[in-house]
């Protein structure tokens, strides 16, 4: 992606106030047998803690089923956390009343993976954009028209009058995703959650969409949580990267530090698995860890990655859950290999 302006994380965000704080978040789904009897829990999120600062982009990477989307949905309030707390602008979400939730929802936008599925097929573009405003108490027709015009200009769906009466199936994939972004932006949020926003799009459209998101971010000083399994898009886009495995965040780092030197064996393997269009790949074998992602109903004891880890320390990794070790200044890894960096 050569055309994408490289935006390196130069400023230190730490002096800023965190817009979102997630503390020890657990989201478990109950599994029932025969409709009544509890058979166990799927631990989709098992102790996730992080801060997100204003105007910052954080990428969350990890393979399918590691809890990335559950994290997004829990922050959005679609899933109810079992334990732990989410603070938005120092306000605990669990203490919000109805109006509080309305304000919170107006401050976050949600961009989904499948743009066609994310748009109700029986609503016109105009109605799709009006719905969030109607629900969140913006009833003034002129204000609605003004916002629709503004977001459609921002996502470059022009001419606007042509698009308003159209239905989602009349739009191309890229246009659909722009409409999804427009819907996320219509409540003028402070934070966006983008759950694999480009993974279902054509390679040619991906760059446009990512550039669009970046443009929106700089214009509105948005905080963005960018969830992906595709590491090739991460480096151009985010200031920090969190790596998730087995419902936990196992590595937190600035993008530059992580790209230079991934610390956790899983992150290393993830980078190893990223494909580059290089003819040399024909001759080399990738060092990909064997085995399968852990069951979230009965997670392995100790470090969740230990059954697949090539650098396992017997008696430690398979017995005790690794705490977070501060390896470098902006680089934290939850791995026993770095136990000396306390």
């Amino acid at each position, binding site marked *: 992606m050569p055309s994408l302006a490289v935006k390196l994380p130069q400023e230190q965000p730490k002096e800023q106030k965190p817009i979102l704080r997630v503390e020890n978040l657990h989201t478990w789904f109950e599994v029932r047998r025969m*409709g009544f009897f509890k058979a166990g829990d799927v631990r989709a999120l098992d102790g996730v803690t992080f801060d997100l600062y204003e105007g910052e982009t954080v990428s969350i990477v990890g393979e399918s089923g590691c809890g990335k989307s559950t994290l997004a*949905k829990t922050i*959005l*309030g*679609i899933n109810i956390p079992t334990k732990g707390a989410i603070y938005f602008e120092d306000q605990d979400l669990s203490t919000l009343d109805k109006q509080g*939730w*309305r304000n919170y*929802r107006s401050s*976050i936008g*949600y961009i*989904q*993976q*499948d743009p066609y*599925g*994310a*748009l*109700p*097929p*029986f609503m016109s573009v105009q109605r799709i954009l009006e*719905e*969030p405003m109607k*629900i*969140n108490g913006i009833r003034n027709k002129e204000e609605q028209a003004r916002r629709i015009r503004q977001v459609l200009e921002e996502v470059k769906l022009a001419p606007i009058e042509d698009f308003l*009466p159209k*239905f989602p199936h009349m739009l191309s994939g890229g246009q659909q995703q722009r409409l*999804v972004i427009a*819907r996320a932006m219509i*409540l003028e949020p402070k934070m966006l959650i983008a759950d694999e926003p480009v993974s279902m799009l054509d390679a040619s459209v991906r760059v446009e969409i990512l550039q669009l998101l970046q443009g929106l971010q700089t214009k509105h000083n948005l905080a963005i949580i960018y969830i992906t399994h595709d590491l090739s898009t991460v480096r151009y886009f985010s200031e920090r990267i969190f790596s998730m495995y087995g419902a936990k965040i196992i590595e937190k780092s600035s993008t530059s530090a992580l790209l230079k030197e991934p610390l956790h064996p899983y992150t290393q393997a993830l980078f190893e698995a990223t494909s580059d269009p290089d003819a040399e790949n024909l001759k080399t074998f990738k060092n990909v860890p064997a085995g399968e992602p852990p069951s979230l109903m009965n997670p392995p004891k100790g470090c969740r990655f230990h059954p697949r880890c090539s650098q396992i320390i017997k008696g430690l990794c398979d017995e005790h859950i690794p705490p977070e070790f501060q390896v470098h200044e902006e680089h934290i890894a939850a791995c026993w290999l770095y136990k000396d960096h306390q």
Partner: protein
Amino acid sequence: MKGLSNVFRQLRTYPSAVAGLTIIVLMVILAIYALVTIPYSEAVQLWRGGDNVWLETPRNARPAWLNYFYKDKMPETIVLRTTDDPSLKTTVDLGGGVSTSDMLLEFDYNYDGFPTELAVFLTAEYDSARPNVTMKWITPDGREIPIADLSVRAQETYRISQDTRLVRRLGGAQPEIGLFADPTNPGKVVKGTYQLVAEGLVFEEGSTVDASLVVYGQLHGLAGTDHRRRDITVALLWGTPVALAFGLVAAVGSSLTTMMLAAAAVWFGGWVDWVIRRINEVVMILPLLPILIMVGLFYSRSIWVILGVVILLGIFGSGILSYRSMFLQVKESGYIEAARAYGAGSGRIIFRYMIPKIVPVLIPGFVTQVPAYVFLEATLSVLGLGDPVLPTWGKLLNDAHTNGALFNGYFYWVLEPASLLIIAGLGFAMLGFALDRIFNPRLRGL
């Protein structure tokens, strides 16, 4: 809106849909015509009948248009009234309050069949002395047959056909035959001008007497009459709005409620889903018809009560399960998730996001359901559980059945309501199948 006009454009390519739609539109026009020309209270009163409602119509008459197909022309009813045409009556004052009123009721009879009945209705105004009327019958070939000599009350009905003395005078022949038959060939009608001469004698100043002669025919109106002289057209006309309303309300009411219940079960899940499914399983095995018969027997036969029970029982059934499975899929779609993220409430999600997605699947189903409910109403009526006051197609069939219409040759009595039922069913079925093909394109290849 765009989707709707698109559906109409596609419908035009199916001849069966056009035919079905035409039938439905014609039925709706017929229903509106019935409601406008015969208001509800009038329809109820006409159908209940009574002393003065159906005096001048024949019993069990066939439809009048059948004459086009008969070689021997059958008579229609002839009514002559002196009150309508004062020239039929000549009054001569004899002085002293006494006067004569000679009424000459003259008609041409050129049919090949005999009338079914003869009657004279006399009305008189007087204080104490009743007028006297002497009647005689003059045939085209000049025979004069004295009929009766009556002293007339305010309202006097003289049924010539039931006058046993006249029967004796005619040599045992029924008057409606004997008065019209050729004496040399008793099976044949003498065609020509018949006259009923009624010579009235009034005994008071200002007292009057009037007569009307009704020669009941064998044919009547568009649809014929039933055993109580009621014009079947009334029931055919009024049956249309009743059938359409019953079918539509039952189909729409039950399928919409079914869909809402299924959507609520899926959306709320948990115990709501469990309760709705268990109730559904129990109600599904309840037999509809026996329950309706019990309601009709023990509670009420009003069409509205029956409609309510039909909707209530129609809500549950296999439909709720198939809608449920569709909604389970819809519930997981991305746009529902997005709607939750921007804060849509449960009601809004069910009605604005889930149901609109399923409605296209519902429309053909409910169009084909309409005739099923129309037939159900007819079935109940045939079983004698029809609404006691409203005339409906099913009640016509019931009357026809109890009066042995098919043994007695009153085929029109059965065929007319039955063909209307079939045409209504056909119209909705043809439209429904075409809609099914439009909304479920996979069927098109079949």
